[in-house]
């Protein structure tokens, strides 16, 4: 490896203790959180731990959104994913899994290497695609993507999306109530 001289150390120290340097460190932490959370969510045997991993992963994703200049989406990520989705999933676990036996992988022995191989292939392919592709330079912005701009867009250009979200949520509410009531054995 590259021999580390005193000058290097001083360079790194100076680079670290600037706003940009600290931001870089935080970004690395967020990446680590995402990776650790995702791995934890997928591999841990107990479902409730998976949910904790998922929550961790989403907190990391929220941090990444913050780096992408959209704190609003970052906070919504925490509010909706951690505060609502994860809790809903853990509710499902509590209600539907009284036994605490380990919920390991599928019984089929061949599936594990196959799915792992497919996942690695997918990751490799996407990464290569991302690295090789020629992305266009940042074009001129028509607005700066702040909360106000999002709000204006939502109610003008993308009002259809806005309506669709509410429709989907309404259908989801009604559907889940119907489903949950239909399966009830006792009345």
């Amino acid at each position: 490896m590259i021999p580390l001289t005193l000058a290097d150390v001083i360079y790194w120290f100076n680079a670290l203790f600037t706003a940009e340097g600290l931001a870089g460190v935080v970004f690395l932490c967020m990446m680590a959180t995402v990776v650790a959370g995702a791995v934890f969510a997928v591999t841990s045997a107990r479902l409730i731990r998976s949910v904790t991993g998922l929550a961790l992963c989403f907190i990391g994703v929220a941090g990444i959104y913050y780096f992408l200049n959209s704190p609003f989406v970052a906070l919504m990520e925490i509010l909706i994913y951690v505060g609502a989705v994860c809790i809903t999933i853990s509710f499902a676990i509590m209600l539907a899994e009284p036994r605490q036996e380990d919920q390991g992988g599928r019984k089929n022995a061949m599936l594990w290497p196959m799915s792992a191989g497919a996942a690695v292939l997918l990751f490799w392919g996407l990464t290569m695609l991302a690295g090789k592709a020629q992305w266009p330079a940042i074009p001129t912005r028509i607005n700066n993507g702040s909360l106000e701009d999002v709000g204006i867009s939502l109610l003008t250009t993308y009002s259809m999306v806005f309506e669709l979200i509410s429709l989907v949520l309404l259908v989801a509410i009604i559907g889940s109530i119907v489903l949950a009531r239909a399966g009830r054995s006792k009345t």
Partner: protein
Amino acid sequence: MNLQSEPVWLLVSLVAVIAFAALNAAYLVWVERKGAGHIQRRIGPKEVGPFGLLQPLADGAKLMSKQLLVPKGVDPVLFKVAPILVLVPAIMSFVTIPFSETLVGRDINLGLLMIFAFASVNVLGILIGGWGSRNKYAVISAVRAVSQNIAYEVPMLVIVLSIVMVSHTLNLNEIVRQQAGFFWHWNIFRLDLSLLMPVSFLVFFVCMLAETNRAPFDMAEAESELIAGAFTEYSGMGFGVFFMGEYANIVIGCALAVILFLGGWQCPFGVASGWWWFLIKLYALIWSVVWIRWTYPRTQFYGLLNLSWKILIPIAFVNLILTSAQMKLDNLF
């Protein structure tokens, strides 16, 4: 190093906020015990220090020196993660709270949203702590805490929405700035915005009590039903951290009520505004939380949900409609 540079200021504010949260948690326990004592016509803590003022330190030392037991059969990872999940978001929320116009950790534009986002993580902490304890009482408590939080998030957010509509901002400092002047400029007395504003403050306060699992809504740690609920298996500092998180949440809830309705750091008479007014209002509100705890019996679970769905949510929506109608009328004429 420049103190005004962003990373340094962030670190300083973080340390200050952690200290504030810890100190508050410690002394709110003292206030609670002393208040309970005098309401019940006894003295309360009095041995350690004058008026028992050093009692929190002694308690803290005791909790620190106790062994952190991880009982056999619990899920060790979740069991240890849960207290952190309760405390850290609470402390993060402190960063955005404006103690005065300048005394604020980070004056970000989405402060209100940030507090709600982090407050929602708190529930996950209780849920995981309860489930990870593998104790039947703790599991029941965790389920209760979550359904309670979900039920009361709705009216709380709707009430806050009407305030946001009035203020046109999610920035807490800006919301306070708009309430400058005499106390009838505070949002709670703005009857010209909506006739239900004082009522909606009460609704917000009740929701805040429920969200922080305080009596009379302490279903999650109902000691006569569930021992200590989700915290049953915790000992030593694990319990202490949970406790700190609980009290930090109370402080945040009360601070939010002060900022949204009671004019934050604004002086009621329009002069000499500053952090002292904020603290006075904050602690008055916290005292009323303590006062309420030692007055009422605990609600029953159905009563709790009925209160939310039948009373608070209708009031919140009526308030929202009134406010928006008023704003629309202002635009028309």
